[in-house]
């Protein structure tokens, strides 16, 4: 028997499974779009997608008006056609298939939800970025820490503590920048505790992270209910950073209002994404960090201080998470509410994984979560006939789908979470 032929048969069988599986998935999605949205869209109604924000400086462009029913039907047909094509010929790239599938479904959903009404697309984009900010910062904290081999699941707690520290210090000093600085230092300090426990004493990294989360919720809630909500309300009233439009850039339609009319925390987030990416992949420090996260022994034999590298990265990550904490209070609402981070630290970890431990990847994954989050709010305003409880679940459902690994597998650093013993 010819062995090469048989190998090919086995590989062909695996490919056939992908082909048929995804073909069916696409066909079913096309059908769902048709049944759920197509049949429920009234003929003759249009969906209006707003392309401008009322108070923006950007050049005004016309809104997008599309016939609702025709668009949904068209999407259903395209997806079904793609499914049929996939069954017969087959496309290798699972990423593209899943992307097309998700995009068509979300678009059909939006057209259906906005039929006969107006839905502001730019506003949606802007709020996606705003809501993605703490998630992205949490994810970057995770990336820095885990690239050097230390798992930090205490990000949620770090952000809560920093958020509270920010609002109190900003209120005390009557200066938001003091609050920002204090938040960043607080984040670094809490992360340093984590680093000290897991590097020096080799405490289980998950246990230490959980402890930080429990401590964060407990301590901030205690301070909040005992002081901030009682005698010291003046300490919980800092105000928020103003919007600073960036000259020229903010005039660009769509992107301008979505990105370049934001406050300093959001700008800093973008800067941190770029800086961490450059550091990790284009500088000696980044090379050493990644080596320590992949094969600490190898780094050690080349004279790299594994422990010091880990300390610095975990602490730097904590400072980024501290910035994320500042977003919640002085960057968004100007006051501290108990447990106001609402799981964003954990969603950030999901974004880190989905972004394959890569800062830019983590940022775009955060945008997906931010989008799911802001979609949920917009849909409630549009009074879509879906119970609001289900809409609230959207970001968490997206998290779960992402983490099942359906959409491409990501590989953690090889020594992630493993204490280094000389």
């Amino acid at each position, binding site marked *: *028997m010819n*062995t090469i032929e*048989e*190998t090919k048969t*086995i*590989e062909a069988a*695996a490919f056939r499974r992908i082909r048929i599986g995804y073909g069916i998935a696409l066909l079913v999605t096309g059908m769902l779009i048709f049944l759920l949205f197509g049949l429920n869209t009234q003929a003759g109604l249009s969906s209006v997608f707003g392309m401008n924000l009322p108070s923006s400086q950007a050049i005004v462009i016309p809104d997008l008006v599309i016939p609702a029913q025709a668009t949904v039907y068209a999407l259903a047909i395209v997806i079904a056609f793609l499914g049929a094509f996939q069954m017969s010929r087959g496309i290798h790239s699972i990423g593209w298939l899943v992307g097309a599938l998700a995009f068509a479904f979300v678009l059909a959903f939006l057209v259906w939800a906005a039929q006969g009404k107006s839905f502001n697309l730019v506003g949606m984009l802007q709020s996606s970025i705003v809501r993605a900010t703490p998630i992205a910062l949490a994810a970057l904290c995770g990336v820095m820490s885990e690239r050097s081999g230390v798992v930090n699941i205490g990000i949620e707690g770090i952000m809560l503590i920093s958020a509270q520290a920010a609002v109190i210090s900003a209120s005390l000093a009557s200066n938001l920048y003091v609050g920002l600085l204090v938040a960043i230092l607080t984040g670094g300090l809490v992360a340093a505790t984590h680093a000290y426990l897991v590097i020096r004493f080799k405490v289980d990294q998950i246990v230490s992270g959980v402890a930080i989360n429990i401590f964060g919720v407990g301590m901030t809630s205690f301070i909040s209910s005992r002081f901030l909500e009682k005698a010291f309300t003046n300490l919980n009233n800092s105000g928020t950073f103003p919007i600073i439009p960036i000259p020229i850039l903010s005039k660009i339609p769509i992107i301008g209002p979505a990105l370049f009319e934001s406050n300093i925390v959001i700008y800093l987030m973008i800067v941190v994404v770029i800086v961490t990416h450059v550091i990790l992949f*284009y*500088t*000696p420090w980044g*090379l*050493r960090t*990644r*080596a320590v996260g*992949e*094969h600490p*022994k*190898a*780094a*050690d*034999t*080349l*004279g*790299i201080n594994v422990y010091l590298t880990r300390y610095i990265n975990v602490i730097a990550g904590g400072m980024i998470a501290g910035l994320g904490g500042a977003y919640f209070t002085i960057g968004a609402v100007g006051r501290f509410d108990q447990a106001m981070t609402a799981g964003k630290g954990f969603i950030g970890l999901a974004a880190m994984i989905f972004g394959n431990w890569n800062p830019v990847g983590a940022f775009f994954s955060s945008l997906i979560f931010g989008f799911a989050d802001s979609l949920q709010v917009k849909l409630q305003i549009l009074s879509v006939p879906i119970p609001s409880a289900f809409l609230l679940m959207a970001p968490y459902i997206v998290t779960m789908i992402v983490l099942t690994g359906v959409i491409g597998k990501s*590989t953690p650093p*090889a020594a992630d979470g493993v204490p280094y013993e*000389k």
Partner: protein
Amino acid sequence: MTTVLELRGITKRFPGVLANDHVDISLNEREILALLGENGAGKTTLMNILYGLYQPDEGQILVRGEEVAINSPSDAIARGIGMVHQHFMLVPVMTVTENVMLGIEPTKNGIFLDKGQVAKRIREISEQYGLEVDPDAYIKDLPVGTQQRVEIIKVLYRNADILILDEPTAVLTPQEVEGLFQILRALIDSGKSIIFITHKLKEVLAMADRITVLRGGAVAGSAIPSEVTPRQLASLMVGREVSLTVEKEKPQPGEVVLQVNHLYVKDEREHVVVNGITFDVRGGEVLGVAGVQGNGQTELVYALTGLLPVESGDVLLNGESLAHATPRQILERGVAHVPEDRQKHGLVLPFPIYDNMMLCTYYQPPFSRGVVLQEKAIMDSATELTAQFDVRTPSIKVAVSTLSGGNQQKVIVAREFSRPIKLLIASQPTRGLDVGSIEYIHSRIIEKRDDGVAVLLVSSELDEILALSDRIAVMYKGQIVDVLDADAVNKEYLGLLMAGMKPSEAASKAKPGEQTVERVF
């Protein structure tokens, strides 16, 4: 002749162990010094001290006559000392260039990595010493031999003139070993000095200018290769007379016990790694599977023992199919497995010896009645097995993790060999063991063969294959390229097959001669 390196009275104590006991060693310029010794003789500890990974409790290190303190690998590198570790210190997901530059990265503008400059230097070094390697390749895609070249380049890039190589030949094919020796010669010619750590006598005799033998942490003696015999070196190493050959009778092959037909197996990454294998093993014979590590032997064994699913094809044990059986069903039908990674698949390290000895049978009477373990029966049986299989331990209640490698392996052998078995699958049964333990395990395997058990031996040590096998199957890239009779085997032919040459080409290329098999460690 100038002395470039001298160790005087180096002593290192670990809790409960004297790893190095006043060791004196000197290395001359342009010389290959072989450091010979069994596992646990203190060779690696000594070199780790020299490389700054450990600090000695006593003693001095002199580099070019000057006493130096080496507190970290950086100090060693600064003194021109470089080390090629036994387990390669390379980051698999990074490129050759990134691995070489790690720790002393040149930059552009003081910020950004300058990979171009390093890649250029790597090309220069590889040309100078004949170390062929592509600077942009990822380590994970390179064969082991090439990875070793990267390790050597790493050392040379740091301008080391004293090179320490820790068991460099353990992972290589005979041809790759030959290539390595040529590289080492080229290094010596360009003025480098080399310390070569090994426990293989043959290499020492072929390669070294001088030999220093370590035993029990102390220097047991020194020699010049032309003036000693393997037997003398072996007894220096072990401290007693050892037998270098396996005593065995002619095999008495019986019925076919294991029949493997067109077997295909995929690894975890979904690659087909066992690619249509057909062979059989008869009762009372040893079939050795030779091949360089990573050619599908591991997955073959996993599939036979139920640890990986069979993609297609069949595995028959006395005519019954095992292809879709669970590991427990397989072992209940009389298959014993001595796994390649004894600590991962062979033992539960934190468990005591007596529990580890019962891992296959704990649920059967007399060790279990209903759902309750019968502690007394287990203890009695374990005590008996410990004595019978010569496991050296203070008590059967100590965790297996505290035993030496040889004794850990004896626990596995005791467990697997004491059951009624028809087929024994032994994968790298003596990896990392000392000469004494190897001798013991080999004699036990031959004993099983003589009892009529079919033995499938997988090993990357060619000498082990030659010493034990009655027939030899050579595996390359997931296929069996040839099956040979062990009596009339040509070692060179075997090596060429292992390196991927087709049987017809190899047969024409291999020189005749070297027909007899003498086992030398």
